[in-house]
């Protein structure tokens, strides 16, 4: 994975320049910084994080694979707690073990803590400000194409056979139109995967 790394991509983060690129501490700091940047822009339920992590860790740096993004996304949504923190822990762990998980999770959380402090302070004036509502409307809109783009990029890795299109359609129906819990849906998916793809491979 290391060989895909290009130090020039670090120039966007002043103060943490290219000298920290090769070693582990550098990667950990880098992950914290990237996750903090992502954390500044996770509006609207946080789903845009999938697209952002894909762009930063898969496409730019090659530290994760597209398969890992899909696999971790399904786990993150199936485990209790907060999806975007789960996602950070899983991706961080895959990149640099426990230290990576901590660095990613706290990187993501730091801007939220700072922002809430500020917003709480100014809440009275923000609440009645019509421009805030307008900006938020715009930001909510963009989450939808970001999700669709993330899905588009994951399709080659997840839709590998006719059966998988069937699973996609079924899951879409179940998640979109019923209240069946996500962990249950994922467990059924895993069981069907074992059943269908395992027997196939043996045959």
């Amino acid at each position, binding site marked *: 994975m290391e060989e895909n790394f290009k130090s020039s991509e670090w120039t966007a983060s002043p103060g943490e320049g290219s000298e920290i690129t090769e070693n582990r501490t550098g990667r950990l700091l880098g992950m914290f910084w990237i996750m903090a940047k992502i*954390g500044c*822009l*996770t509006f609207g*339920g946080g*789903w845009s994080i999938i697209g952002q992590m894909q762009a930063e860790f898969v496409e730019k740096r090659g530290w994760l694979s597209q*398969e890992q993004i*899909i696999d971790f996304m399904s786990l993150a949504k199936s*485990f*209790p*707690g*907060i999806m*975007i*923190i*789960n996602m950070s822990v*899983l991706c961080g*762990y*895959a990149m640099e073990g426990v230290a990576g*998980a901590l660095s990613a*999770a706290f990187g993501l*959380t730091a801007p939220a*803590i700072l922002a809430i402090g500020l917003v*709480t302070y100014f*809440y009275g004036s923000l609440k009645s400000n019509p*421009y805030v509502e*307008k900006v*938020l*409307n*715009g930001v909510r*809109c*963009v*989450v*939808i*194409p*970001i*999700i669709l*783009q*993330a*899905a588009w990029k*994951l*399709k080659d890795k*997840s*839709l590998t056979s006719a059966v*998988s299109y069937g*699973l*996609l359609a*079924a*899951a*879409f129906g179940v*998640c*979109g139109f019923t209240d069946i819990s*996500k*962990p249950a849906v994922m467990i059924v*998916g*895993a069981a069907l*995967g*074992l059943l*269908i*793809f*395992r027997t196939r*491979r043996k045959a």
Partner: protein
Amino acid sequence: MILLELFLSFMKIGFFSFGGLTMIPVINDEVLVHGWMTAGEVMDIVAVAEMTPGSLGINCATFVGLRTAGIPGALSATLGVMMPSLTLCMAAAHFIMKLKDSPVLESAMSGVRPVSMGMLLAVAVTLSQSTFWAEGAAMSLAGVRWNLVLIAAACGVLLFKFKLSIPKTILLAAVLGLLAG
């Protein structure tokens, strides 16, 4: 002691919820019982969470912690709500990395991946409904907020066709929202 209480309460909230708005009843249970917030304040924090980056769980924990015990309170409540991720998910990450090359896991994942895609597309549909139709408006063509549909479409073209980066597209969407939201 208040810091420990905050930590434990929010840890409970973390373990018993699956993020987003499903957290509200669980949050209500904890913070109302402790007298940390009123029901009205919980609704305010949902609005604040919308205005700030980060998830409702983190934002709520920070807000309640800050109000009841200052910055140390904010940190311990936030750490509490992160506990499921830092324990259960950490363990899951460990096992999944160990089993990385297992054919059994790979087969299971071949089933989970398309299911996960289906879920992601369903999320896009649910978000479209809550974004493009005003709250409480009828799900008919007349109720569509076309200005928002246009913003989403414009951002989609920039992302897909012109490969604009996600952060830049989000900032642009904020500007478009200000002009036409």
